């Protein structure tokens, strides 16, 4: 596998705020890498530096073995905030984006038509962008990022706002691109998507990388444990009650609101916590939960916020080396 992206000691500050702080990161060809982190962690700044929109204050960025500015034609980008020219027709927009990326208007149109067919949007080339629904606009923008068959694709929250059917369509397309050798870096808050699609994840918090490893390794992080509880009554009340108990780091409820998930503190005794919950909450079932990327995210970010940065950074370094 060859290296397509390498960040070495990259630092970027805006005034007194250090948005990215000495980040090292490598991505191989044909890899899907998830860039995770809370809001304001520095993910967008990192992506903008990879796209050569802004330059790092320190460190270096190599894209496809050269300067990021020279690699723009081989990069595809779907920003988090979608934007299209409202009065422009889809075909004209595709031709314009294609020309910017170095392919002719005619080639852009024919490729776009084929892509849009695959995305279940046939026959919209002559429609104005303003006439499309939000989901359709998102598909159009996704296709425009792929027109020039980029070697590296950067997707910022690609699945937000999509219904389950279209989400699966996007996911299938992302996996197909990986099969064709495209390297994909995607930034997301949807941990289950990252867990399902990514080969590797990096976790960024307050500008610093705190985790960089394969997904399977991330899920084996030491000290991350959780319980799943199915309460008899209101899950919201149960979650609040469980959240205030000793040994609990935080709680959340699943999508249908039936199951409460409680993450344990690193030093908590699992058996005694379970006994406490059984004693204080009327429940149908309680069991040890499978650790998800969500748990890893919450755990590491909370740890970092609590001042355990030294320990976590050590872990990140170890994983990166691995």
């Amino acid at each position: 596998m060859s290296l397509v992206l390498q960040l070495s000691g990259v630092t970027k500050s805006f005034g007194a705020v250090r948005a990215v702080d000495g980040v090292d990161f490598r991505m191989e060809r044909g890899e899907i890498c998830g860039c995770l982190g809370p809001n304001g962690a520095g993910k967008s700044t990192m992506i903008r530096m990879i796209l050569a929109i802004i330059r790092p204050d320190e460190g270096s960025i190599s894209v496809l073995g050269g300067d990021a500015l020279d690699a723009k034609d081989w990069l595809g980008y779907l920003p988090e905030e979608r934007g299209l020219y409202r009065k422009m027709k889809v075909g004209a927009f595709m031709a314009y984006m294609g020309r910017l990326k170095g392919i002719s208007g005619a080639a852009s149109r024919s490729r776009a038509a084929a892509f849009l067919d695959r995305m279940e949007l046939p026959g919209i080339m002559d429609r104005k962008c303003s006439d499309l629904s939000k989901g359709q606009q998102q598909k159009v923008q996704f296709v425009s990022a792929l027109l020039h068959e980029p070697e590296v694709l950067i997707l910022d929250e690609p699945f937000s706002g999509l219904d389950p059917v279209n989400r699966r369509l996007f996911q299938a397309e992302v996996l197909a691109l990986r099969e064709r050798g495209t390297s994909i870096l995607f930034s997301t808050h949807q941990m289950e998507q990252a867990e399902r699609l990514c080969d590797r994840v990096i976790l960024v918090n307050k500008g610093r990388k705190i985790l960089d490893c394969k997904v399977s390794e991330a899920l084996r992080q030491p000290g991350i444990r959780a319980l799943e509880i199915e309460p008899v009554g209101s899950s919201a009340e149960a979650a609040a009650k469980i959240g205030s108990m000793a040994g609990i780091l935080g709680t959340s409820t699943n999508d249908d609101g039936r199951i409460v998930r409680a993450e344990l503190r690193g030093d908590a005794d699992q058996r005694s916590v379970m006994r406490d919950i059984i004693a204080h909450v009327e429940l149908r079932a309680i069991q040890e939960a499978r650790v998800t990327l969500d748990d890893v995210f919450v755990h590491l970010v909370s740890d970092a916020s609590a001042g355990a940065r030294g320990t976590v950074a050590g872990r990140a370094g170890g994983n990166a080396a691995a």
Partner: protein
Amino acid sequence: MSATRRRHFARRVSAIAWREFAAMVFTKGFIFGVLIVPAVMVVTFAVIPTLLHEGPRAVSGQVLVSDGSGTVAPAAQGALESILARHSLNAQELADAARSGAMDAGELALSAAAGSQDTSENVSVSFEATGLTEGELKESLRNGHCLAYAVVPGGLLDAPPAKGETFTLAVATWTSPSHTSLFTRALRAGIVKARLDRAGKDHAALSALLSLPEELTVRISEDGAEAPESLAGRMLVPMGFMILMWMVVFTGANQLLTSTIEEKSSKVMEVLLSAASPFEILVGKVLGHGMVSLLMLAIYGSLGIAGLVLAAMADLVTPLSLVLLVCYGVTAYFMIAAMMAAVGSAVNDLKEAQSLVGPVMLVVMVPLVLWLPISENPNGMLAVVTSFIPPLTPFVMILRATGTTEAIPYWQIPATVVLSAISSVAFLWIASRIFRVGVLMQGKTPTPLELFRWALVR
């Protein structure tokens, strides 16, 4: 910059420039605003004189004059015929009459409105002396027996005339203002003639003696060259050039501001930034809207020249003036557009832009304020100093360089063209620094000081 980068730069800039140009020009709004409005103006200007050719409404009847002596009416009749004869003059005769002062502004307007039509055919009025009382005269007017009546106090015919005395002219409500004016002028001239006759003076001889002499003013430069004095050449043509340049520059730059704000607020900018650098986007947008401005300059400039040719004043525009218009116009556009693009990148909507556009507008308005003093004295201190202060340079220089009555030192033209070109590059460079940071910024509107800081960000 490597050859590959240069190639990529040219491709991206041309793609962006063409999109901006096409998005502006191939729209109904542009076609209506830039092509149809001037066409409507041309048609209007062609039609209005035709409509004015109709001249004053036809009038026929008597104006009764009561002055106690019966001398005013025949004198007023003579004056009326003289005025009507002047209204029949052709364009050349009118110009001569204006230059010699033989006709006042009101007469000129009436004559111009009447055109070549013989007004005397429309106006068949006789001034008749009458001994009726004022009450009887009023009754006669109300019954339609006369067009108007005048009561002239005897004191107005004395030499010297009695102070504070006025004559009364009564007209029917339907009388047109131009006819009222005609009667008034005929009566005034008639009273003066009657007064002179009563004093035993020769009216014709005195009129000849009092006629204003014709003049020919010539401006002689320091090197001895002569140029005839011309209001159009000295003030109107330079103003026309400056207004034309100002209009197309400001329109193009304003469109650039709007387009930048729209791209930023609709988040298209983020997509563009993934495909092109901020500098490439800025240059592409500036060039695209610059082409729109050039097209407008060509359209309006051609219309202006066509108008001058029709008015037989084409000699007021020299080929050098047109070359300078393009040179100064292009550099002025780059400077103002750079400022507008920088502002557009820094704000999220047009409302926010107003606070930052204010200072730019102030700069853009300065040449309009300076037009009069600079046209009055194109080689004065104010004109020379402001010629070397970008971004005023191109606006002031086009005022100074296109005047036909006073030459400016030749070295100032190439010097200011070079200064404008260098300033354009500098403005674009500073704007690109602000643009690069601004397009990614969200939140509160930056202050001018913050914009300055952005220009210094690495």
